[in-house]
């Protein structure tokens, strides 16, 4: 641990800033402080922390291991669905039990279940629980699903994809196809997850009916912050030392790593699955704060945005991913939420709700062209100017992509 921090001073910086930020938010929040920050904004910040977590995972799989996965938001969504099932079941159970309790005769367990089922699945014209919901009544088992479902999907998909040596652009397209298949599947009413209605009412935590949302939001904010900190430490550990060497080696020259005797597919699978699990956990923290999840959240575009965040923040640096996710997603909600002032050009008025995506798209192109190291690259520049040391460039650079004999 000490060695990890010594070799990676950014960890301390990061944890310190995160802690300061959390304290600041707590001090300004409605439930615990002055109330300068509204509950809904605390939720937005909490959600942003979860997005930062999934962005770190994306950074590890893409920035370090070189797999441009367009499927990590799908894992994120699966985590959300897994926890959402329990939230929705348990909450509906409370409501249904309350309404059945007033009946003259106490309900049988079967009646309670039927009532819950028709309450949840009424919107898709069903009244029975699909097999998917077998464990929905158990928080522990659904929490296990948060890890297992994204993990197993990543394991199986990754095994198939890596085994057949699909790499580069091909692999990206394949992960995108997986994501598309998943979201199309979930869009069906027959999928057992309420089709395009998705799961809703997730912000109401069962058993915490009396606790105001302002408290719930700050609690989730803290849990998200802790998860982000732990995730940061985990991935900092994974990408340091020899594991980091091998993983970056795979990114830069897969064949050479293979000739050194490393089973490249195994390492890729490890990274892919581990990041998928973390993405699932991030999703499980995100959606109770968002309150609703539906298949549109899993659509390929979401995963592409994730890649955009990481690219803008700077690949190959964990803090870069955090900066990218936080800045772009907050800016995005500022612009689309009408926070940005419209610009009157005289002949045309630029309304940012309409033009934000154009701006984002073009600035993304600009970043790719002119600042391939992203915002994180600026931090490197500053750090280097202050303490010119032997550079430890962890980012992929042009030399990494130079054609080499082993790769030909």
């Amino acid at each position: 641990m000490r060695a990890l921090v010594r070799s990676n001073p950014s960890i301390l910086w990061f944890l310190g800033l995160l802690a300061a930020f959390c304290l600041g938010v707590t001090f300004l929040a409605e439930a615990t402080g002055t109330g300068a920050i509204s509950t809904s904004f605390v939720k937005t910040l909490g959600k942003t922390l979860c997005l930062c977590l999934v962005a770190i995972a994306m950074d590890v799989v893409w920035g370090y291991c070189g797999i441009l996965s367009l499927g990590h938001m799908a894992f994120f969504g699966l985590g959300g669905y897994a926890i959402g099932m329990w939230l929705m079941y348990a909450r509906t159970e409370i409501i249904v039990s309350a309404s059945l309790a007033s009946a003259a005769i106490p309900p049988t367990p079967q009646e309670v279940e039927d009532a819950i089922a028709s309450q949840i699945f009424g919107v898709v014209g069903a009244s029975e629980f699909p097999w998917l919901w077998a464990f929905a009544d158990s928080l522990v088992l659904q929490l296990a699903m948060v890890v297992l479902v994204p993990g197993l999907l990543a394991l199986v998909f990754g095994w198939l994809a890596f085994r057949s040596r699909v790499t580069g652009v091909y692999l990206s397209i394949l992960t995108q196809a997986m994501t598309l298949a998943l979201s199309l599947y979930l869009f069906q009413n027959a999928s057992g997850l309420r089709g395009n209605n998705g799961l809703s009412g997730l912000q109401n935590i069962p058993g915490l009916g009396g606790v105001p949302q302002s408290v719930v939001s700050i609690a989730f904010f803290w849990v998200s912050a802790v998860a982000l900190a732990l995730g940061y430490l985990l991935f900092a550990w994974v990408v340091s030392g020899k594991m980091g060497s091998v993983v970056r080696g795979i990114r830069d020259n897969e064949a050479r790593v293979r000739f050194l005797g490393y089973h490249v597919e195994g390492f890729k699978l490890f990274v892919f699955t581990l990041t998928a699990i973390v993405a699932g956990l991030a999703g499980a923290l995100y959606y109770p704060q968002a309150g609703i999840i539906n298949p549109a959240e899993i659509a390929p575009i979401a995963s592409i945005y994730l890649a955009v965040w990481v690219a803008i923040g700077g690949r190959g640096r964990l803090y870069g991913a955090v900066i990218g996710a936080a800045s772009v997603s907050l800016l995005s909600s500022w612009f689309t939420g009408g926070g940005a002032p419209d610009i009157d050009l005289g002949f045309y008025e630029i309304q940012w709700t309409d033009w934000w995506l154009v701006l984002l798209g073009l600035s993304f192109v600009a970043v790719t062209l002119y600042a391939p190291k992203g915002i994180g690259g600026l931090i490197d520049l500053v750090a280097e100017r202050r303490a010119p040391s032997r550079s430890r460039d962890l980012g992929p650079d042009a030399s990494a992509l130079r054609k080499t004999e082993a790769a030909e």
Partner: protein
Amino acid sequence: MTDAALAPDTRPTRKRETLLELSGVSVSFDGFRAINNLSFQIGEPELRAVIGPNGAGKTTFMDIVTGKTRPDEGRVTWGERNVSLLKMSESRIAREGIGRKFQKPTVFEAQTVEENLAMALKAPRGPFDVLLGRTGASGAERITAIATEIGLAEHLPRIAGELSHGQKQWLEIGMLLAQDPRLLLVDEPAAGMTPAEREHTTDLLKRLAERHAVVVVEHDMEFVRRLGCKVTVLHEGSVLAEGSLDHVTANPEVIDVYLGR
């Protein structure tokens, strides 16, 4: 030369027995026969030089042994128990004890010299071994020893991409040493080296060949002569001649296709 560079190899110098054998191997690319009914064997320990004009199939030969290219027909057997290499993946073959140095140095340019060596260092190769295992004191010692051997002790914390071409060559040789393979496939080790470095390389290869099987692919006749070992001449994908350098250079066919030009 510190002994530490080759230290973990406690195998005694033993009687030569066949380590790798190729028989009747052929491979074609889009109708072009790169390797044509090639048979080759090398014992352990042994030093062997492979020469031949461009397009003779030297690189393809190495590709076949390391598992990068699958032959259309023929057998490739390995070790005392004559296991076939044809079904194995590249990484499995490398773990079996076949190391390769590429013609153009292919080191991980974004990483430090130390990281490059540590990655090559002989150790369990599974993801969890790598994640949880530690490069202990003995590992660090070995890295230092190898770095000294290849003249990069000063440069351990440097990014490999900043090294000169010759230094990269040495780093790649160092990685090969760190792997501690039983069979070393060395493609043009002396390219881009100063005469002193060449001598050093020759010494190193000769010393390695006391305990290991070493195959050196080389163009430079002077270098081959200094190795003073058995020579195999490849031409159009098969063995044209085999024997001492003097023996093969006397062969009229060899003179025709290679030396005579």
